């Protein structure tokens, strides 16, 4: 009788190679060096994490009205933030008019939400995006500044806090993107005079720190203007920020333009399109799509750089928090103030960078390995 060969059933993997123990062995304890590193990391966490959590959460004071509420326990005094919260958000914007800021914010959120939804047709998205880029700033400006449609005027000196930070960042972005595209096109132009003008402009702005640009806009711009003509301080800062970021944006866009094969230009020219039509219909849509991550990175840098307007005495989020920490009634809470400001900035920058990484993944469908 032929013996039928029946193979043993497969053995299960050894217990220490699967599940949690396996994962720990592989990722934390695979070699002596690895074990040392794990111990070191655990020690680091042990030293830093418990005091940090105790300070920020467990021993912190959350409720109260005055600084006396914070005398009892050694943790953070979040009352300081609570008391100043409105100031941190709106600056010195009159309390009765703050609904205008809120409605502008609501409008922005409502307008931008469909851009992030998957189901909305892309044509609508493009139109909505253009609307946000072109029409929204006008609406927001009218709402903030007032003086029209029966809204009482609010001087820009009273704008502050997160509102001012977002105004500077938003205005800087909407101005820097088109300017940057024009500069990039100019730098790639065949005409030597245009090209060298653009190169000089870009390299000049990129070579100096933003702080000197802001200094220049606050002390030198008044000297450049004819007698009697003067801008307000915010506008001067905005011009400085926009020109500075436009130079950086130009380099990002140039990268995209260089990545478009020459055949695209030639094919478009062979179809009889002129320069502006080639650029607007064929080249820029492809180039801009390629550099979206770079553009978002520039936006993040711009957002962080808005804190520099403190130097010329504008009360953006950074400055208003700093100002509150020097308030004699609330001395000694600078750590809480800076941690709060850092958390706000971090939230904005981190979500932007996550969004850019997401886009990068989605847009890289063509040549992904």
């Amino acid at each position: 009788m032929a013996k039928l060969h029946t193979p043993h059933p497969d053995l299960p993997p050894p217990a220490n190679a699967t599940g949690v123990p396996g994962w720990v062995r592989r990722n934390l304890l695979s070699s002596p060096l690895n074990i040392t590193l794990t111990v070191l990391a655990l020690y680091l966490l042990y030293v830093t994490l418990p005091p940090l959590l105790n300070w920020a959460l467990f021993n912190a004071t959350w409720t109260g009205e005055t600084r006396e509420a914070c005398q009892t326990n050694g943790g953070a005094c979040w009352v300081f933030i609570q008391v100043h919260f409105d100031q941190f958000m709106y600056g010195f914007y009159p309390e009765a008019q703050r609904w205008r800021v809120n409605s502008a914010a609501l409008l922005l959120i409502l307008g931008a939400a469909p851009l992030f939804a998957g189901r909305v047709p892309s044509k609508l998205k493009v139109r909505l995006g253009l609307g946000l880029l072109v029409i929204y700033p006008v609406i927001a400006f009218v709402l903030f500044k007032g003086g029209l449609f029966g809204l009482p005027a609010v001087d820009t000196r009273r704008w502050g806090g997160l509102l001012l930070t977002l105004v500077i960042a938003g205005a800087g972005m909407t101005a820097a993107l088109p300017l940057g595209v024009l500069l990039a096109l100019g730098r790639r132009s065949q005409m030597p005079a245009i090209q060298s003008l653009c190169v000089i402009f870009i390299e000049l702005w990129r070579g100096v720190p933003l702080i000197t640009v802001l200094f220049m806009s606050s002390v030198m711009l008044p000297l450049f203007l004819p007698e009697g003509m003067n801008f307000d301080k915010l506008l001067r800062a905005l011009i400085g920020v926009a020109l500075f970021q436009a130079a950086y944006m130009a380099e990002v866009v140039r990268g995209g333009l260089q990545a478009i094969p020459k055949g695209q230009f030639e094919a478009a020219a062979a179809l009889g399109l002129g320069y502006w039509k080639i650029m607007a219909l064929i080249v820029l849509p492809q180039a801009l799509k390629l550099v979206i991550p770079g553009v978002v990175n520039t936006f993040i840098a711009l957002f962080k750089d808005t804190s520099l307007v403190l130097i010329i005495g504008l009360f953006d989020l950074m400055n208003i928090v700093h100002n509150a920490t020097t308030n004699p009634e609330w001395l000694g809470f600078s750590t809480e103030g800076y941690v709060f400001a850092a958390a706000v900035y971090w939230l904005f920058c981190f979500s932007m960078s996550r969004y850019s990484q997401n886009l990068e993944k989605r847009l890289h469908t063509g040549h992904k390995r």
Partner: protein
Amino acid sequence: MTEQAASLPPKPPFWNDPHIRAIVFQAVALIAAIAFGWRIFDNTQDNLSRLGIASGFDFLSSSAGFDIIQTLIPYSAASSYGQVFWVALLNTLLVSALGIIFATLLGFIIGVARLSKNWLIAKLALIYIEIFRNIPLLLQIFFWYFAVLRAMPSPRQSLSLGGTAFLNIRGLYLPAPHFQPGSGWVLAALGIAIILVIMLVRWARQRQMATGQSFPVLRMSLALLLSVPLAVFWLMGSPLHWEYPELRGFNFQGGLVIIPEMASLLLALSIYTAAFIAEIVRAGIQAVSHGQTEASFSLGLNSHLTLRLIILPQALRVIIPPLTNQYLNLTKNSSLAAAIGYPDLVAAFAGTVLNQTGQAIECIAITMAVYLTISLLISLMMNWYNRQVALVER
């Protein structure tokens, strides 16, 4: 002939000729730029004469009349504005150079940790990068300055670090080295050791080319560099004397003091830039494909040699250009010193001197010119390096 010419399409009118158009465009752009520049110049002249502000660079030789809290070269309130410029420039260069060193060290460590096989270490590095990259540098500087270093105790209650260094609200006091006569010989010995190392490297390379035998160059050079100066140091009777800071009255005397402005600026600059450098290092190492490592192993190179001869040279080619960019950013970011009063170029020169003399244009122009020069120098160096390491394609 005539028939052919007639069959050609008619010549376009001159306003549709691309060449003529290009010339017209450029002429218009140039004229506009020049007119704009001229208008600004004209306005400025008007404003300056109206406000009674002097122009020109004569102010550089007049006496400054203010003190600076950190000077690397001799300076007093009686010194000229020109001297202020040099003091401020040196302060900027000092904090940038130190920042670059610390940021590079920290950045490389974190970047390698980010790629570690150890999950915990990799995640810690990731958290570090994500936190410090996304918080404005100015906020970090303020945090270190106002929340940490301004909250230090007064000199009498200083935190003592081993009895030789002291930390208080006035800064960090360290022992200062004092060189006695004879330390020149130690320096000379160091020079000789460096020359010996260069010769050793050359000889080792020639021998390897000729015979294939390798020589432990790194270990031998380190030994040479350490032993020769140390031997001379010992022979000369240790010509080095440490001066320790001492509490006298209300403050510390002697020693080397790092002012809190400098310390907080340096801390924030290094920590912030290190987060960016770490990402650059990670990307550079990941850019070298794994096939390179496998090929190198199959040729019989060990892991140390693979790292040194195969991976590092290729990773550095990717790392160096963005790294230089970060160095440039760090140098430009050091201008944030103005916000906490560290006497750098922007704070001392474009700030105090400008306020005292009112010569905004000259001060800002000089400051911008300095930063532009530094930027251009660094990019020139980077371009030169890029040409050196560029792939030579056949």
